[in-house]
């Protein structure tokens, strides 16, 4: 690893200013679970590392209408948060499946979002939940719907000097169930072949579907919100219909061939994951 200057600013504005001034020479780290590996492998060779860890007020979860998650909140804290588990169960479940407990203790929600790796679990779940990303700079703060946040793999709409400071997740309506599933080769620490999140809302009177969303990870350059899920609206979410919807969702995916397998297999896996996630979400909505 090349030596670098280490800066630990105390405020977002200060961090933002350093990033803006130093440009490509600066590298922002949160929990460091991805960043340290990149530094060690020489994927990035910054002049200075800006550690967000000293910035106050970026840690913590508030469930007050929406779920408001600070960027420096460890994935593990999201996994264990009582509010998240009761009303944003899909998100807590996705968090619980990230790598292993040691990584989850280090990795942060803001880091997982800002990194933009298409295989990561958290952005898929946030896409299904229709979250928005809060980004701040010296100029102020803005909220970006997660569907507009990603431009490509590891590429976001963040302007130079702009930092993810939090994520807001709207509360799903009553009678909603959610599920997140991933498929990895080998151990769960490995990058997934694919992952999928599903959210199903049922009309308790008719038992018909009042809302359905599905999202897929490692299914394209950015998280893919599957339009096909809306096909369940107003219908009974039977296993047969869910299978059809999942097959259509997999067609919306544009996975890439890589070390984790060929495109045809990833598409098959995505279909299965979406199907199983929708089935599980439906069962949870009924419960």
């Amino acid at each position, binding site marked *: 690893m*090349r030596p670098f200057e280490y800066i630990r600013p105390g405020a977002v504005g200060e961090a933002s200013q350093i990033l803006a001034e130093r440009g490509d020479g600066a590298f922002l780290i949160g929990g460091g679970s991805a960043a340290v590996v990149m530094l060690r492998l020489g994927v990035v060779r910054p002049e200075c590392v800006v550690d967000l860890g000293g910035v106050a007020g970026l840690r913590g979860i508030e469930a007050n209408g929406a779920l408001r998650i600070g960027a420096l909140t460890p994935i593990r804290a999201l996994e264990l948060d009582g509010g998240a588990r009761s009303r944003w169960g899909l998100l807590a479940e996705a968090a619980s499946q990230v790598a292993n407990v040691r990584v989850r203790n280090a990795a942060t929600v803001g880091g997982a979002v800002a990194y933009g790796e298409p295989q990561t679990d958290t952005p898929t779940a946030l896409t299904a939940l229709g979250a928005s990303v809060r980004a701040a700079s010296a100029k102020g703060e803005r909220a970006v719907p997660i569907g507009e946040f990603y431009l490509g793999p590891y590429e976001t709409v963040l302007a130079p000097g702009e930092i993810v400071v939090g994520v807001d997740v709207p509360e799903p309506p009553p009678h909603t169930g959610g599920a997140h599933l991933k498929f990895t*080769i*080998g*151990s769960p620490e*490995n*990058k997934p072949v694919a992952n999928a999140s599903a959210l199903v809302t049922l009309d308790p009177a008719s038992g018909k579907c009042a809302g359905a969303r599905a999202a897929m990870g490692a299914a394209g350059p950015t998280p893919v919100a599957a339009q096909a899920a809306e096909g369940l609206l107003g219908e009974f979410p039977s296993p047969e219909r869910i299978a059809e919807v999942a097959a259509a969702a997999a067609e919306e995916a544009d996975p890439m061939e890589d070390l984790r397998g060929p495109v045809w297999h990833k598409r098959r896996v995505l279909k299965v994951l979406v199907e199983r996630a929708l089935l599980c979400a439906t069962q949870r909505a009924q419960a």
Partner: protein
Amino acid sequence: MPTLEAADKAAGRVAYMGDLVIPGMAHAKIVRSPLPHARIVAIDAEAARALPGVVCVLTRDEVRADPDMEEIYGFVYRDAPLVAIDKARHQGDIVAVVVAEDAATAEEAAELVDVDYEELPAVMNVREALADGAPRVHEEFFPIAPELRPQAGTNICHHATIGCGDIARGFAEADFVYEDEFSAPPVQHCALDLHAVVAQVEDGQITVWTNCQSPFPLGRELERMFKMPARVIVPYVGGGFGSKSRDRLECVITAAAKLAGRPVRCVLSQEETFMTFIRPAYANRIQTGVKRDGTIVARRNTFYVDVGGYAISGARSANNTLKVATGPYRIPHAEVNCYAVYTNKPPSSPYRGLPTTQHTMAYEAQLDRIARDLGMDRLEIRRKNLVRDGDTHVTGDYLRSAHARECMEKAAAAIGWDAPLPASPDGKTLRGRGVSCTIKYTLTPARQMSENGAEIALGQDGVFEIRIGTVNIGQGSDTVMAQIAGDALGVGLDALRVVHSDTARVPVDSSTTASRSTYHMGRAVVEAAGVLKGRILEAAAQLLERGADSLALTSEGVEPEDGGGDGGGVSYAELARRVGSPLAAQGECIVGGTYDAPDGKTYPIASTFWTFASCAAEVEVDAETGQARIVQAAAAATTGTAINPRSIETQLEGGVGQELGPTLFEQMTWDESGQLLNAALLDYPLPTMETMPRYEPRYVDHPFEGGPFGAKGMGEVGAVVVPGAVLNAVYDATGVLFHEMPLLPHKILEALDAKSAAAQ
């Protein structure tokens, strides 16, 4: 019992190579070839040398300029230059070494070394390497071990054949002949402890600290290379699995230290280990002739091992497995052909029994195919053919302690072989079980090359010091040797300490490989203890003015046998002080030669002992994704007397856990231009606790005649039996017999698709 060092290791008090600091040491970074095969036109290291903090740069020019430095090393197969002389033979081949005051400067300077490469056509696998007119990886051959036979004008660095009976007659007598081809790609050992060396050349003496598995052969090679005495010191090692069995770093870092004029440290990154030693690609063709009743009458196994760019390690380990390539079966007519082939991959080394593992995968998977075809039970066909005591092996050896069948029965019973598998009403979960059996040799050189010594000395502090060359690589060797010495002397573990693997302080030992230490070093320790015990009794008898035969060794000291502990004896500390001259004794274990069997005949000894093992596994295959999951597994091995059952169980468990990776998902992958795509753990999946199935260790501990207290070795076989059992379990679950590993989900799903398409 837990190993002697377990508490210290758990508390972080044990020093590994990475912890070693030698005063004044500089830091080395290796400049590596980015191309798999390239002529080195020119090397410009001036910019690197000019960087502040750089001590020196070792290139072919510095090597050639030193008349007391040989160019080519390798103590099994001498074909590796210290740094590339004329060309680079694999991606990551060592082209230069930069030495600097600190590691970061060395790393920076290494990037400033400008090497002008002329790319040469590369041979990236055995098929390409054996093609007519294929580019040659080496123009000359340099085998050291006498059994190695290169084929002039080809890339075959070793070819050998063994056999028994009359193979043509055997196939003619068979009712059916089955032929299959199996293969497995390279993987890396991924030991936690990365390769590391500190070398010092001072006052005409080399001292090398390293985490290698063969300190004595390495020391001799250093002495030949640099024409001066060498001492090799190996601290605790955090795993090697064969990747550290031969030299790849020690000679070149010693050359750098000589040039630098001060100690030099080099610790590889995880990524560099993928370019250092790997488990080779393997392919074979296996033909088996059987009678209608399932009796095997003939088998031919022709196998190809891709040794990579240098045969320093891979050629001999491929040759050694000739002895076991037909399996633990009674086969009257057999033939084995081994081809070790140079390619432009990184050099290969053993890998926990390799390539016995791939042989076992092949003959066991084929045997399940035969059983299914003949309508026979899979255990029954094995019961019919497995070797028994007194059988003659393909090598001509007379087999003893051949409890192959007992291993199989124990492993199968441990996973509830006869219990019905859970049903899958929706047909989406396919379940099955599989078993595999193996036979493994240990390293058995010719008698005159046999080297296994031990020394035990009573220190002035009253503690017996056991001095052994065995490297403590995590297998628990110090503990087993202390247990053996304690039993042989008649003293407790508190009265013993172990000094290991320092060539200046312990007697010569050939290596810590091939499951050999418990047997070989154990016997040397027993012999040393026996001699020392006699000397101590004599010395105590003189001191106490009693007859030696009325005295006995206890944990406290030498006591009169009828004394009841109330005086009349002498403590070990007092005895050591009063005797003055050192009380010490050496023992050795000479192997090889011939065996006089109970049948009155004399048999050759191709392996000092044979280890038998079995694995039984139960899998679940997700029919929709192709994912195979091992639900439960059991491994059983013949251990002879179990000296430390806890170590045996963890060795077997570790072997199973490790080999699940290559069986299910691990593989090194190259693109079409010969670039390795996953030389980093980010993209190279490894098994973890999460992939471990429910697991039961079993062992078969009938004492082995000749072993120390009846023990023999078993360090590798837990791994060796895994792929065969898993392939067979997946065959049972899906009806598809796979001919290669790893069993990646998309391969399984592809096969299931093809099967259902064929059924329609």
